[in-house]
């Protein structure tokens, strides 16, 4: 028995079957504000087009620039709430409405032909994340093919998990070879938001397209769901604590002794 609405069930089915959903950004003003901040930082490098940032940033200076953008955008007091608002209606349905959010929002920049900043195939749960977390992945440009990321659908991910010990002596490249025909390359445009199940193996490859990929990512989970290595306080912070929880956390039984 459940009392979910038709719309909720559609979203649920899609997420469970595909391991992700892509929807319109729920707050376009927030999205545009984030994109503008990043473009303004690119301007300091002499560029004004995120897609063509590789003309302004060399591979050797990419990581320092990326870290500088992450540092500065995370210093903006509006950033995390804006980021949350972009995905809020989907998080409400997929995760719940009493949430913990990652303390820092990350940024990925994939220049064409850059092999220095790749994320090999992994599931976040393999390295300390709770399966109760989702990733909200926000493209700042249109992403497709190798300019995007790939995700192994849940069914194939379960098969891989069942057989994992057979492949555990290999390496991540061999692991990718094993799954490459089953992965979904995420096609998503600026103006849309991706929410995916980080327990499904995912990653990226060398960007073979002629444009630079810019995307942000941040994790969300139910506030009162199990945590693994990423703890409340140091990695996650409560963002939508509800009144009954506030009251209950302060509740004490009457003293009888």
């Amino acid at each position, binding site marked *: 028995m459940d009392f979910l609405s038709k719309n909720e069930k559609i979203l649920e089915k899609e997420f469970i079957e595909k391991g992700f959903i892509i929807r319109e950004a729920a707050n376009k003003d927030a999205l545009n504000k984030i994109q503008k901040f990043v473009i303004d930082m690119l301007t300091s490098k002499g560029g004004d087009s995120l897609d063509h940032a590789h003309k302004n940033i060399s591979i050797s200076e990419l990581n320092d620039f990326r870290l500088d953008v992450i540092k500065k955008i995370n210093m903006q007091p509006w950033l995390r709430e804006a980021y949350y608002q972009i995905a809020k209606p989907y998080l409400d349905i997929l995760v719940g409405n009493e949430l*913990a959010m990652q*303390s820092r929002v990350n940024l990925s920049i994939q220049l064409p032909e850059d092999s220095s900043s790749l994320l090999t195939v992994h599931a976040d749960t393999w390295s300390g994340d709770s399966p109760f977390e989702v990733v909200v992945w926000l493209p700042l440009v249109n992403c497709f093919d190798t300019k995007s990321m790939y995700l192994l659908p849940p069914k194939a991910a379960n098969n891989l998990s069942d057989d994992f010990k057979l492949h555990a002596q290999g390496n991540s490249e061999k692991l990718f070879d094993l799954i490459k025909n089953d992965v979904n390359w995420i096609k998503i445009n600026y103006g849309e938001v991706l929410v995916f199940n980080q327990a499904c193996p995912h990653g990226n490859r060398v960007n073979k397209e002629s444009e630079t990929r810019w995307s942000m990512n941040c994790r969300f989970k139910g*506030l*009162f*769901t*199990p*945590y693994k290595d990423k703890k*409340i*306080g*140091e990695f996650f*912070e*409560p963002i939508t*604590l509800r009144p009954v*929880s*506030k009251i*209950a*956390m*302060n509740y004490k039984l009457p003293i009888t002794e």
Partner: protein
Amino acid sequence: MEERVPQHVQNIVIRDYCSKKNIQYLLSATEYAMENSALTLRQLVKDLSSIDGIVAYSIFQMPEDDNERQSIFNSVLSLKKELHFAVEGLSIYDNETYNHIENIWKVKKTIPDCLYL
């Protein structure tokens, strides 16, 4: 609360936090190892008038007892000083930040009562 990180690692994290926040690091203080001790912390708060604030390694080094912890936080705020937590990158300097830190503490204490895998 439960976690233990070697003291020299705590110092590295605190110094790095101070450096990033442009906070002048003056003197390191070490809490007594006895369980639930807050003797050193209380002394630091008592002597707070001559400095800008305290940087602790973690939120969860604060007293687990709600009343005692809140009393320390309130003392810091009433002196118009700051209390920073290096690992979490958070600080208390007004009522809003006080409530945020307290919420994190209370969620942490509530989690063991939630169903767990």
